[in-house]
């Protein structure tokens, strides 16, 4: 293509660039503002200051005084990591079983399990709360993760991706005398690691961001998660916006890091079961 042609193509794209720049600004600005607001005091924020200020340390101290920040960060990490590990193990086992040992009965069971996708969280919330509290698991990591460790979405994702798993490997491993369980751990898991990565990212994000269920099951302040912590910061009659945004910043750091480092896996995780 000649130079002239190229610049013509770019000129035709000008409306696209304008649209993208506007939308990118809209996308990024609230998050940029959140970060700068965390460094400003509430008076400057309400005066409309949008650049970095000097109140970061002060906001941080106030946040520590108002809420158990480290405890909640720790809780969120423990719950999210535990949920990610167990959910991946159980759902990948199921995806492996449904795809590589497929028969009619299993396909019917799979279709039935998919129906669970339509059940709203708010509908199962009350019976689950009763169940978990009877088992004495309120305010515990088990109470948090048990309802979430097997999801139709994740099973479907592993099943769809298992289609690329070569059947020849199964046969070869069997001839080698490996057990079926051995095949799963020694052959399937290493080969499917990119699916595991995508599934891990999306499960971690969902667990970290969960709000309705933790709010139901974590009745004790000491067991609360980060989203609950920041919601509490905003529950008072007067809100200190600098402190609030400092809390939001802490709540967002892990998910932001995951997003920037593992963006490809995140995108794959979202669209994972659609192929």
């Amino acid at each position, binding site marked *: 293509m000649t130079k002239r042609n190229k610049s013509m193509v770019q000129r035709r794209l000008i409306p696209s660039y304008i649209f993208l720049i506007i939308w990118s600004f809209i996308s990024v600005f609230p998050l940029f503002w959140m970060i700068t607001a965390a460094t400003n005091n509430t008076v400057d924020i309400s005066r409309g200051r949008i650049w970095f200020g000097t109140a970061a340390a002060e906001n941080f101290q106030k946040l520590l005084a108002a809420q158990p920040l480290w405890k909640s960060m720790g809780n969120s990490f423990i719950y999210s990591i535990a949920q990610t590990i167990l959910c991946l193990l159980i759902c990948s086992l199921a995806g492996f*079983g449904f795809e590589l040992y497929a028969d009619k009965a299993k396909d019917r069971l799979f279709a039935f399990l998919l129906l669970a996708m*339509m059940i709203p969280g708010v509908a199962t919330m009350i*019976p689950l709360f009763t169940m978990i509290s009877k088992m004495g698991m309120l305010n515990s990591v088990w109470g948090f993760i048990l309802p979430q460790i097997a999801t139709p979405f994740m099973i479907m994702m592993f099943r769809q991706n298992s289609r690329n798993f070569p059947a020849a490997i199964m046969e070869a491993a069997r001839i080698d005398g490996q057990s079926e369980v051995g095949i799963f751990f020694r052959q399937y898991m290493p080969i499917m690691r990119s699916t595991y990565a995508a599934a891990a990212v999306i499960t971690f994000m969902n667990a970290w961001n969960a709000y309705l269920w933790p709010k139901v099951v974590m009745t004790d302040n000491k067991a609360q998660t980060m989203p609950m912590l920041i919601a509490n910061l905003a529950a008072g009659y007067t809100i200190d916006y600098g402190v609030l945004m400092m809390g939001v910043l802490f709540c967002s750091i892990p998910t932001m890091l995951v997003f920037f480092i593992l963006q490809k896996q995140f995108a794959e995780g979202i*669209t994972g079961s659609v192929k």
Partner: protein
Amino acid sequence: MSKKGKGVRAKERRAGWFFLMPATIMICIMSFWPMIQAFITSFKSGKGAQLSWADPWNFNYSRILQDKIFITSLKNTFLYLIIEVPIMLILAILLAQILNNKDLRFKGLFRTMVFLPCATSLVSYALIFRSLFATQGLINQVLLNLHIISENINWLGTAGTAKAIIIIALIWRWTGYNMVFYLAGLQNIDYQVYEAAKIDGASSWKTFWGITVPLLKPVIVMTFIMSINGTLQLFDESVNLTNGGPANATITMSHYVYNMAFGQGVGHFGYSSAMSFVIFIMVAILAWINMKVGDTRD
């Protein structure tokens, strides 16, 4: 096949069932069984753990029809659904179409920025929008300085604007998310189709409606179902952006169910279960309609 071979097959079949059992059992205990329990509970009345059969049996369900707040929450949820979902999905397709252009520069950077809102939790972005649109917030300051308004507007304290802001916030949070699906869908379409259309002199508007939308139809149906499902279950935004207010004007169905069950000193588990069952029926019907509509492509 020899006898020995058959034996191996049977062993494999058993192994298959063994692999999918933990997940199947968990889904039955943690989704299907609670759903059945919720249905049973929906015919009971009383508070907290002290529940007894409602008299008459449909007491909770007839109460729903007369509950003004539930009707409001139903209207709100559908208002969000009808306005937000189409705008968001059209924006998402447009963005995907633009980002799929081979000649576009800084593609990765733009994609990251459009996608970025997905990295924030629902509670976080709800609180960010609540702060931005506070009466003493940035939006009011900017509008004042530009002399568009003469005094601070109480955005979240007025029913109409509060609803608008929930819709704006939802569009902000979910457009990039849906864009990812369309981008993945577009990458499966052979780019030469577009080159051919360009040579034929088709305008980008025509290409959009003539090629992109029909080829993306399965993805569009799927994102539609997901958006409907998500909107009918809206909770975090209603709680943290407006707290359902002013005076329940922006409350969503899930938020109201939560308040009835776990709000201060309430514990109407029977009534909440009845409402949640109504939500379940609505999700199921809308998903079914959507699937039927999606199926009728020639």
